[in-house]
């Protein structure tokens, strides 16, 4: 493995940060104490993907995220304090409390925003890739979306447009196999998402989405090629969502219990931790320390969010237009 040890540890820490962040955000929401007013779509189980992909990105690369976006944002470098504050609906949040969990953005570090409409980020990302193309250089865009998004017309149009214009964009499909309760083998004719990407004349790579090293290595080559600005690339990661579609019983989880349990055994973080131990990169103590550190960071983010003021009602009147 050509990844340096510090980088491996950073990746582990990022994955764990995502995990602890979403555990806490979900708990706060489920607790019903009103700290988190709106729904949270947990990224738990998929941490390896955002981490492995974004570790290949530079600060000036851009990403576009979807409704299940916390992991993408954290991996790209978003500040967990401002994320938590946003989810808590506070004025200090990334969007001053206007967006909430599904709409966090940080344009300063190339996060062009999460999105509440399935597949709607793809056209926007395609436009960002057009910007990168027009700017020249080797900047790229990565757009994250689920298997469900491949069922929307906006997926089709964006794939086609990015391909004919040879735009520097990586389409990152997180195939967690379900859109809410619908299995992709039911909803995607032919049952193969890569096959579809190929029909747009796009190179495709399918990688185990629960193995962060495989994700990182796969994305590395893809990102390097995309930096040449010779066209888009499609990456499919098979994975699984551990939680319900969102943290509320409004929509029951209809997936087979055994399936959920089986995938939990494939935990990307446990797996990566074991690997790091085996490689001698870390000790059990190191892992425990990282966990403590991450827990403290998340607690700090929660404290920050709790202490932050709510927006005033009239703040709602600002930001409809830019000036």
């Amino acid at each position, binding site marked *: 493995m050509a990844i340096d040890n510090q980088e491996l540890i950073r990746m582990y820490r990022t994955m764990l940060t995502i995990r602890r962040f979403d555990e806490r955000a979900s708990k706060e929401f489920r607790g019903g104490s009103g700290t988190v007013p709106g729904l949270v779509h947990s990224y738990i189980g998929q941490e390896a993907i955002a981490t492995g992909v974004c570790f290949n990105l530079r600060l000036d690369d851009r990403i576009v995220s979807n409704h299940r976006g916390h992991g993408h944002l954290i991996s790209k470098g978003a500040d967990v304090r401002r994320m938590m504050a946003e989810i808590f609906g506070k004025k200090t949040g990334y969007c001053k409390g206007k967006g909430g969990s599904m709409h966090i953005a940080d344009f300063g570090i190339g996060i062009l925003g999460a999105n509440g409409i399935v597949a709607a980020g793809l056209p926007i990302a395609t436009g960002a890739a057009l910007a990168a193309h027009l700017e020249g250089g080797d900047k790229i865009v990565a757009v994250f979306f689920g298997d469900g998004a491949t*069922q*929307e017309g906006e997926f089709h149009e964006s794939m086609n447009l990015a391909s004919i214009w040879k735009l520097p964009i990586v389409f990152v499909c997180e195939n967690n196999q379900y859109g809410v309760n619908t299995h992709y083998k039911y909803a995607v004719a032919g049952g193969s998402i890569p096959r579809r990407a190929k029909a747009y004349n796009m190179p495709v790579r399918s990688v185990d989405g629960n193995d962060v090293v495989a994700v990182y290595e796969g994305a590395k080559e893809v990102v390097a090629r995309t930096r040449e600005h010779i066209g888009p690339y499609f990456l499919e990661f098979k994975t699984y969502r551990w939680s319900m579609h969102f943290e509320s019983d409004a929509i029951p989880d209809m997936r087979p219990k055994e399936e959920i349990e089986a995938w939990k055994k494939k935990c990307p973080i446990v797996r990566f931790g074991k690997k790091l131990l085996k490689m001698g990169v870390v000790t059990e103590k190191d892992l425990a320390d990282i966990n403590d550190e991450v827990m403290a960071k998340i607690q700090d983010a929660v404290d920050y969010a709790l202490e932050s003021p709510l927006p005033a009602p009239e703040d709602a009147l600002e930001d409809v237009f830019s000036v």
Partner: protein
Amino acid sequence: MRKITYTQATMEALQEEFRRNDRVISMSNDISVELREEFGEERIRLTPISESAFVGAATGLAGSGFVSVVDLRMATFAFVAMDQMVNQMAKITYMFGGQAKFPVLLRMSIGAGIHMAAQHSISPYSMYMNVPGLKLIVPSTPYDIKGLLKTAVRDPNPVICFEHSALAMVTGEVPEEEYTLPFGKADIKREGQDVTVVALSQMVHEALAVAEAMEKQGVSVEVVDPRTLVPLDSQTIKKSLAKTGRFVVVDEACRTCGAAAEILAQVAEDDEVFRKLKATPQRVCGIDIPIPYSPPMENYAIPDRAKIAAAVNKVLGR
């Protein structure tokens, strides 16, 4: 009479109509387990996340002798299928010279208050009101939604039912016996003498609360619920105004070009009503902003009882 929730009333309406006519077919990417168990997967169809396709398919199915029922969930999701609603479903009865019928019921959730921000919260009925060819209903109670949905399923035209998220758990009296409610017939939810308040959807309940509170202050407020926006029962509204001479319309949707603008315009442009108006007519609407996420701002974005009461007081000159 027994009381059931808005959601239960909706379910009863669908169950009864699916039992009544086996050519009624439903499509959604989020299906009701209850309906599926009773009517099977051929009739309760699970779709991919492809709203244009299944809304369009609803039209094709309806034009081929079936009745389509589509649940789009959030009204914001419906925008990805806008061509199929606005260019196709609404117009083809007309464009084809009336040679075919397109019985389609589309359902979608509207409204703020769910803390999901602007891409999940909207009350867009006025956008559809500007598109001739669609019937639009905004039931505010369990009784109304049951009766109106049953009528909708039997109507030979596309109907959109806008269901406010906050109403789901609202309970109300619903008879055991079968009934339907006509389109284009407003319901006077509370009789009064001094002011006419026309309110839509969830705002009916807010208006009623205000009316009750004002009663104690000796003010008699009449609350009119149009129940259907297309067709709109302006007669009932005008009749109420002939009595009260004072007009307030309450709508959660954004103010500009909302349904409230239309209702106010119909009142103001009517010679007879205009002559009888004792005060400047008033709108109480959502502010012209996307619905924000955080509750203090979200609550501020839409009308509340204080704002409704203020408008009522204003037209009363108090």
